[in-house]
């Protein structure tokens, strides 16, 4: 029973990534979709951190990147939610499938 | 008049002047005067060309002008003329004047109409004088939009459909040309640089394999413009829906762009491939000739008849090119000029008839010679020209093609020639059928009796074109001698690899 290595973490993060994608593709609630996005972002963060820790421990690029990703994710979520609310005012729903006036 | 650029500048200026005109009278007169000036300059060009040659100037292209345009891509503004292009320019200027005069009575959107006509002529002039392949292509494309709008806005019948079809098929043609030209460009190497320069490309010794796949693109591309079978289907609809002047320009000038390109670009630049493919060209041309003439037999609409006969006549151009003998090539050029003038006059006459009787159906027309002798006579004269009556231009061109084609002794070319020659009988049949029904015979409709004969501008236009027809028909030698040396040059390039036939 050796200690946890890079591959395990990558495995987890990849799984997380696909879970997030699955969520994004299947959930009808826009807020939930945003959360799925967050999942994906977190998997990416894990990647960065893991790579940084196991491979390139001398520099901190990965860590920084993670920090920035988190911040931007917050900003993105903020704007997204604002827009969703505005949409809700118009169509009284946050079901993503309701928003299909424009097609073809 | 040795500054060729003026040939482009004057129509542009005229077009711009038209935009600033106040009323229709000004517009008409401006464009008329502009075109007349252009005609004078074209004639001046021809005379100075002839005199230059007489003085022993043996350069392939005279009056050259060359400015670097897009130096990074080695694109130049490079113009110059030889006998063939001079002939073409003369043709264009004749047809332009006539077309502008014929469309004197255009009422709706006069300004736009004449502006587009002039733009179209700019394209033609530019195409004929430019020696840089890129510039040439540019001018070839310029004409697309005017054609579309002229037909779609001022046309008759199912004009939208025809206009769209014409625009798209011609665009298809130019796309093929574009591909061919690009390939050519990247396969030339003049001391490390690719070149668009026609004269350099001609001697760039492109390997045969490359030529073999460049040539079809170029030839078919230009062929679409000159109704190469089976890419001719834009011709009937386009011509018949177009307003008179536009049909004159289309048949008289625009189809000749194709012939000129097929000769000057495809055949001249890809000689070896041209030899390889010539049998296909001959085949298609023969089919077009026979098939076009027979299809004409069945038409009931004057314009459709003329459009289909144009397919048949343009077949002679391609046949002459495909035969790859000097005389045949000369014949092809003669046919271009002759058919240009003749068919323009034909469409003019049909337009005059249509404007008065408001029908082009053969079944409705009859006995027009009695009420409008002038127009009737013009119609008969063009008819006779188109069936190749001696003394009129058509005869000279077709005979030259035949004599040239007959120099290919093998059975295939003989058969092609005989079939082509046989078509002149069919031509006689449909021409006389139309003339006999529409112009001669009893008057079918009583209200024809108060129709007026041609007015001054129509007379002017017709006489101008008839003069052209007669000038070629009675004294062909001047045109022939104008063209012959350059056909010789093309032949030398063709036979550089080995002797044809």
């Amino acid at each position, binding site marked *: 029973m050796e200690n946890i290595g890079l591959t395990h973490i990558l495995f987890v993060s990849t799984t997380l990534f696909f879970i997030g994608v699955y969520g994004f593709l299947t959930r009808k609630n826009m807020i939930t979709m945003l959360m799925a996005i967050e999942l994906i972002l977190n998997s990416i963060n894990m990647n960065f951190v893991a790579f940084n820790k196991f491979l390139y421990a001398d520099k901190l690029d990965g860590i920084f990147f993670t920090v920035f990703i988190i911040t931007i994710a917050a900003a993105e979520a903020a704007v997204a939610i604002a827009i969703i609310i505005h949409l809700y005012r118009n169509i009284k729903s946050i079901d993503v499938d309701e928003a299909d006036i424009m*097609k073809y | 008049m040795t500054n060729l650029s003026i040939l482009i500048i004057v129509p542009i200026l005229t077009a711009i002047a038209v935009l600033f005109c106040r009323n229709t009278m000004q517009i008409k007169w401006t464009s008329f005067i502009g075109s007349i000036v252009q005609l004078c300059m074209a004639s001046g060009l021809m005379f100075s060309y002839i005199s230059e040659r007489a003085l022993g100037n043996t350069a392939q292209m005279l009056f050259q002008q060359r400015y670097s345009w897009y130096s990074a891509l080695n694109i130049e503004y490079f113009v110059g003329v030889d006998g063939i292009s001079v002939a073409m320019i003369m043709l264009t200027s004749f047809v332009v004047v006539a077309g502008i005069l014929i469309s004197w009575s255009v009422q709706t959107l006069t300004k736009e109409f004449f502006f587009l006509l002039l733009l179209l002529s700019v394209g033609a002039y530019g195409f004929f004088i430019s020696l840089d392949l890129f510039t040439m292509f540019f001018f070839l494309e310029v004409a697309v939009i005017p054609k579309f709008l002229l037909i779609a806005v001022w046309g008759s019948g199912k004009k939208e459909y025809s206009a769209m079809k014409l625009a798209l098929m011609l665009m298809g043609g130019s796309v093929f040309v574009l591909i061919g030209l690009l390939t050519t460009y990247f396969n030339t190497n003049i001391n490390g640089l690719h070149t668009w320069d026609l004269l350099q490309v001609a001697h760039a010794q492109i390997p045969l394999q490359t030529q073999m796949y460049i040539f079809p693109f170029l030839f078919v591309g230009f062929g679409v413009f000159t109704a190469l079978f*089976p890419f001719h289907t834009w011709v009937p609809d386009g011509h018949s829906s177009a307003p008179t002047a536009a049909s004159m320009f289309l048949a008289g000038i625009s189809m000749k762009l194709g012939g000129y390109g097929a000769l000057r670009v495809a055949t001249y630049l890809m000689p070896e491939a041209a030899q390889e493919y010539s049998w296909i060209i001959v085949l298609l041309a023969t089919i077009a000739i026979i098939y076009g003439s027979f299809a004409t037999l069945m038409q009931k609409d004057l314009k459709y008849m003329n459009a289909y006969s144009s397919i048949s006549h343009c077949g002679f151009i391609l046949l002459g090119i495909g035969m790859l003998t000097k005389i045949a090539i000369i014949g092809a050029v003669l046919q271009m000029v002759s058919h240009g003038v003749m068919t323009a006059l034909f469409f003019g006459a049909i337009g005059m008839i249509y404007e008065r009787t408001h029908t082009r159906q053969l079944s409705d027309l009859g006995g027009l010679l009695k009420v409008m002798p002038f127009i009737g006579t013009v119609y008969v004269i063009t008819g006779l020209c188109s069936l190749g009556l*001696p003394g009129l231009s058509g005869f000279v061109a077709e005979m*030259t093609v*035949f004599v040239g084609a007959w120099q290919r002794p093998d059975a295939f070319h003989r058969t092609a020639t005989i079939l082509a020659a046989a078509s002149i009988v069919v031509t006689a049949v449909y021409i006389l059928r139309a003339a*006999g029904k529409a112009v*001669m015979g009893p*008057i079918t409709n009583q209200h024809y009796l108060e129709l007026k004969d041609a007015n001054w501008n129509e007379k002017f236009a017709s006489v101008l074109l008839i003069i052209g027809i007669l000038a070629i028909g009675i004294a062909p030698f001047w045109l022939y001698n104008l063209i012959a040396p350059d056909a010789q040059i093309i032949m030398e390039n063709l036979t550089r690899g080995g002797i044809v036939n």
Partner: protein
Amino acid sequence: MLSQNYIALIPLLPIISFLFIGLIGRAYFPKFCGLIGTLSLLISFSLSAILAYQFFFEIGKVNGVYQKIIALKYTWLQFTPNIAIDMGILLDPISVMMIVIVTFISLMVHIYSLGYMHGDHRISTYYTFLSLFTFSMLGLVLSSNIFQIYIFWELVGVSSFLLIGYYYDKPSAVAASKKAFIVTRFADLGFLLGILVLSYYSETLDFQTLIQRLTTNGTYLSGIATASFLGASALTWGLMLVFMGGAGKSAMLPFHIWLPDAMEGPTPVSALIHAATMVVAGVYLVARLFPVFVMCPIALDIVAYVGIISSLFAAIIACTQTDIKRVLAYSTMSQIGFMMFALGVSGYAGEEGTGFMASMFHLFTHAIFKALLFLGAGSVIHYVHSNDMKDMGGLRKMMPITHITFLLACLAIAGIPPFAGFFSKEEILTACFHANKFIFGAAVLTAGLTAFYMFRLYFNIFWNKDFKSHHTHEEHHHGEAPKSMLFPLMILAGLSVIAGFVPFNKFVTADGAGFETEFHLGFAIGPVLLAIAAILLAWKMYAKENSMSDNVSNSIKGLYTSAYRKFYFDEIYLFITQKILFNLIGRPAAWVDKNIFDGLMNLIASITETVSGSIKTYQSGKAQDYAIYFFAGTLGFVLLFIYLWI
């Protein structure tokens, strides 16, 4: 040498008057156009008479042989150093003879028309066309270049088209003109190809060079004789094709169908074009190339047989027609047949060349008396206002002069001595008696028939029942025709009496050298007696009103009707053009174009449309679907590029 300027004037005067009348005269003084045309033609006739005198008696003959003289030559189109179309004037016995005939007959017709066309409001146009025709015809006979002859060939074709269609508001006239033009045009296709063949092997278009190269042994002759196609040598093909053109113009079988219909034109025109001048162009062409024809017996035989068959065929039909102009038309065809087979049986030099000489001789005499016949018929029609002999009869009282002249002409064509036709026909019969017995027999038979139908015509017009007018206002009856019409009749009548005594064998021969022909009385008796018998028969049948003719026609009903229906040639042609050309080729071609090729282009367009229509549902408007496609695309790219593309 003789001064060329006035020779050029001979063809130029008509074209000048054509331009003058056509451009100025018609508009400003239509009254005088007729006079102008006539005047110009008078001049050019006198010039040609002078020329003929000079040629035959002063400068033409060099040590006993008439030369071919190139009086003028301008290069019109220089294809290659060898092959060039020249515009030139070639003088030799036949061309000089022809210009005399052409100008003379044309002059007669001009004068005659002054009276005949009097009061027609388009008379100026009429004279314009006449001048154009005369010019083209002169150009044709004077041609020094085979392509030049083709050019003028076409021009006479078109002027005949214009003149036949002169009454252009009459549908039948329009139809006839179209028919004439198209049929001859078809034949001319052969002519053109023939020219191409000959010129290709002889490498020239110039008559003299061509003849010289193809008759003297050498590379050219061997080349064209050895090159063979479908079993026949190129020479044969070339000559055949050229002869096809000739047959077309000269209304030989099977191209004869246009000639009868051509009678729709004004009668003087028929006299000029469709009797005297244009229709003999074919004969002239063969004569012009005769030395080459001699090199190729097959071609000559074909000429001979086509000639005799057409001749007999036409004679038979002529016996049954009732439209007098059509009768004359068929007789013209028959007489031209005579000229043709005379050429066909002829040899080249000396005695051998009797046929050639005879043919030219007959051409000469026939031109005169046939023109006379037509003009006579013209004045009859002018009087009766009908073409049908059923409306005529007993006219000898009303129009004596016409009657006499017509009688003379009939005697001439029937070959009764001492009238013109007798001599020429005798020469022809002699020639083919020596050459080909079968042709001789047929020829004699035809001669008999000729006499018969001519007198059938004559009696039906001038004797038979008494003339009763068919239209109301009697005062319109002006008795005999005006002077301007009678004058030409009388002149021609006089000529058709004396023309036979011209010693053609001295002047017009194949090789240019004259020869002696002795006149066998015994040989002449047979045909003459036959002719007289035929005349008597005609007199018996038609001089008085009786049922005999009907009985005869009933007794040979099948032959009669089929002959009356011209052996159904028109029907056959109609079938070929309408059913085969139009329905079997034209209609399919049009259909294919509309549906296949045009359809192809439209198909491409519609395919694009359909595809774009079918894929539009992928743009479903649901954000998650987009995401799914996005992700699918991602996976696709990844798989493709990581696992497949490498």
